[in-house]
């Protein structure tokens, strides 16, 4: 990459350690995301447009969610306004808008909950900051609950584990239930229900894309590495984010999985019916939609008769897969119980590395000085391996096995304290670009520090959203676009396949 010194005029980094801004009321009020068209809402089972009796419906929905979800009920009651979470959100750090402080974000909804559901709020609203539900309040919900990436960084800080992500999901569910959906999420879920993936890619186009990749792999290695689609009777069903089929650096990751599978000698397949790992049902807080999207994976697994399910690199997808899939689409008694259900591709790859089956030449990554961005939903919403914290250690173990130069970023910005990339939770849309750039600031600051101190020139992420987001915003901070890499991209560089012609002087 270009030396950082050339880009001295980047004005946006905060000093390290991270600076906490002074609050600026309303700083982010005008950052609004496009609303969904009626047909998007209706495809998901929501009213197309704002209901005439929206107020009653919204309040009833709030009551319903409090009955259906203990987290929502307890979190609304338990906050003591201690303030420990106020400086933890990347969107507050990036925008300075106080309503992006996690507790303030919760209060947008809590104030209404108190007004209609608690003694104090009914009779002494001024005392406890309770307020009526009005159109302004609804608009404010729409604005600020779409400036939360549901990353859970605040939940780690809170003495009770109050998770603003749960409140955001509930708020979006309430908004949807009165006919105010977000275009980005709802359009995509509608598309997935039609075509099996978020891009609306049909099986023919998908097959053609995969064939192109197979050719690239052949050119590069001289070995016929396959990327099978819809192969009945394969052992492994790979579920990967559809971005892996077309976006950079995602594609390199997919080619990496293919190499690992090839070298492991296992039979595997993608499914065109379930050609999407991401589950946007979670972003909109809709159990029903999340279940429907998850169910496709079960259907595909049964239909293809596979024995195992493995997930590709995708953050929110892995949270849904690890934490929810069994509940939403299980029981998976028809799969091979000797393997984790589902398994993460990094768990698979680490097994291959540790058993010595995968041949690796680390020096092929010597030009890279690598750091790792823990994706928020992997870090705080899932796990890997069988030890506590495996979601941090497994990816690092793989990276350290395939490259010689690895440096972690500051402790406060990685592992369970990691920042969101700025585009998670349904915010990865161009209409929120301003917010995405600002939300990436804490991560970019931490990256700049290791770039300055250790010459780090590559940052690895294991999430399709992180990769797209960073590829887009990194240039704004003076980093080259290809600073962001897939984990399996580095794996692919270092793997040597049987029969692969290696030019020793190539690196």
């Amino acid at each position, binding site marked *: 990459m270009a030396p950082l010194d050339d880009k001295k005029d980047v004005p946006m980094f905060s000093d390290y350690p991270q600076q906490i801004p002074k*609050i600026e009321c309303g700083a982010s009020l005008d950052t609004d995301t496009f609303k969904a068209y009626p047909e998007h809402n209706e495809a998901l089972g929501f009213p197309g447009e704002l209901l005439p009796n929206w107020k009653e419906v919204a309040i009833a929905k709030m009551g319903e969610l409090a009955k*259906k979800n203990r987290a929502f009920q*307890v979190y609304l009651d338990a906050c003591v306004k201690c303030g*420990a979470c106020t400086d933890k959100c990347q969107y507050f750090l990036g925008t300075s808008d106080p309503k992006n402080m996690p507790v303030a974000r919760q209060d947008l909804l809590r104030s209404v909950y108190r007004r209609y559901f608690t003694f104090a709020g009914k009779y002494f609203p001024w005392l406890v900051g309770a307020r009526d539900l009005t159109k302004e309040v609804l608009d404010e919900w729409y604005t600020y609950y779409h400036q939360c990436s549901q990353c859970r960084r605040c939940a780690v800080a809170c003495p009770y584990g109050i998770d603003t992500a749960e409140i955001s999901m509930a708020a979006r569910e309430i908004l949807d239930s009165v006919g105010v959906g977000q275009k980005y999420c709802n359009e995509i879920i509608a598309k997935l229900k039609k075509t099996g993936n978020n891009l609306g890619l049909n099986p023919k186009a998908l097959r053609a894309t995969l064939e192109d990749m197979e050719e690239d792999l052949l050119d590069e290695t001289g070995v016929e590495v396959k990327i099978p689609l819809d192969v009945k009777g394969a052992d492994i069903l790979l579920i990967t984010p559809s971005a892996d089929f077309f976006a950079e650096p995602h594609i390199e990751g997919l080619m990496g999985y293919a190499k690992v599978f090839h070298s492991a000698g296992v039979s595997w397949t993608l499914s065109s019916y379930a050609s999407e790992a991401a589950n946007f049902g979670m972003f909109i807080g809709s*159990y029903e939609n999340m279940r429907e999207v998850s169910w496709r994976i079960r*259907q595909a697994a049964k239909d293809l008769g596979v024995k195992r399910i493995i997930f590709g690199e995708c953050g929110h997808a892995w949270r849904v897969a690890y934490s929810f899939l069994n509940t939403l689409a299980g029981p998976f008694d028809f799969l091979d119980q000797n393997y984790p259900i589902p398994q993460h591709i990094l768990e698979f790859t680490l097994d291959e590395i540790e058993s010595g089956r995968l041949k690796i030449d680390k020096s092929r990554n010597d030009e890279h000085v690598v750091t790792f961005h823990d994706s928020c939903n992997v870090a705080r919403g899932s796990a890997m391996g069988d030890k506590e914290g495996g979601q941090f250690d497994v990816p690092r173990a793989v990276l350290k096995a395939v490259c010689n130069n690895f440096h972690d970023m500051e402790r406060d910005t990685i592992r369970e304290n990691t920042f969101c990339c700025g585009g998670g939770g349904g915010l990865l849309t161009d209409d929120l670009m301003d917010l995405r750039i600002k939300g990436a600031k804490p991560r970019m600051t931490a990256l700049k520090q290791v770039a300055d101190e250790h010459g780090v020139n590559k940052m690895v992420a294991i999430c399709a959203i992180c990769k797209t987001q960073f590829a887009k915003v990194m240039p704004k901070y003076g980093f080259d676009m290809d600073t962001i890499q897939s984990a399996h991209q580095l794996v692919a560089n270092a793997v040597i396949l049987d029969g692969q012609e290696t030019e020793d002087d190539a690196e």
Partner: protein
Amino acid sequence: MISTVYAVLFYLATILLVVGVGMRVWKYATTPVPLNIVVSPAPRTKRGVVFRMFREVIFFESLFKSNKWIWIFAYLFHWGMLIVLLRHLRYFTLNTWWWVEIISPIGRLMAFAMLAGLLGLWARRVLQERIRYISNPSDHLMLALLVGIAASGALMSYVTHTDIIMVKAYMLGLLRFRIGDMPTDPILMVHLGLVALLMIIFPISKLLHVPGVFFAPSRTLVDNAREKRRVSKWARNLPPLPEGIPANEEA
């Protein structure tokens, strides 16, 4: 007369506290947790979760990691209060337990820990703009109430002593549903009045963090989602989805 008013007040406050918190706990306990939303990294066993919650409740571990100032004040306040309350057991037991005797002198001092903690928290609430922004009048009043209780208690302990034997006799009487005479020192009346108020507002205020901390799914669940399904009752009633891929949708 005053003794009777306070007796009625305390009976009422006790009923509201017990029934109110009981109903809340019942509600929390019976509300389903439809998905495993534990915040990871999380323990993989029940025992691990008990240990995690022990650290949260005894050490305020997460708070310690996230904000040292709040932690120091919160710790002074809560532990001060705990020891003060244990010392108060001597008003409610006929023969004061030996260990209450032992901590009693420390308990007397703990009034200051409690006050220091409360005033520190209050100072942050006023001076730190982010916390000022999220504060409602009730947050300040809650601190005022506790400062009032602690200050009136300390006044009795250190300045204008009240007749402790009489207080004890009165409290023991109340426990046996007999209304005796209590001392009518104004400070004691303030102390007890505020305590009753605290008990009354407990189940309808943020003091619900006390039961809440034990019911927050983000901390109290075991990280075992790949092994264990959890389908809540309402989710079981959702319409069934098709097994296998419907023929018309096949690729």
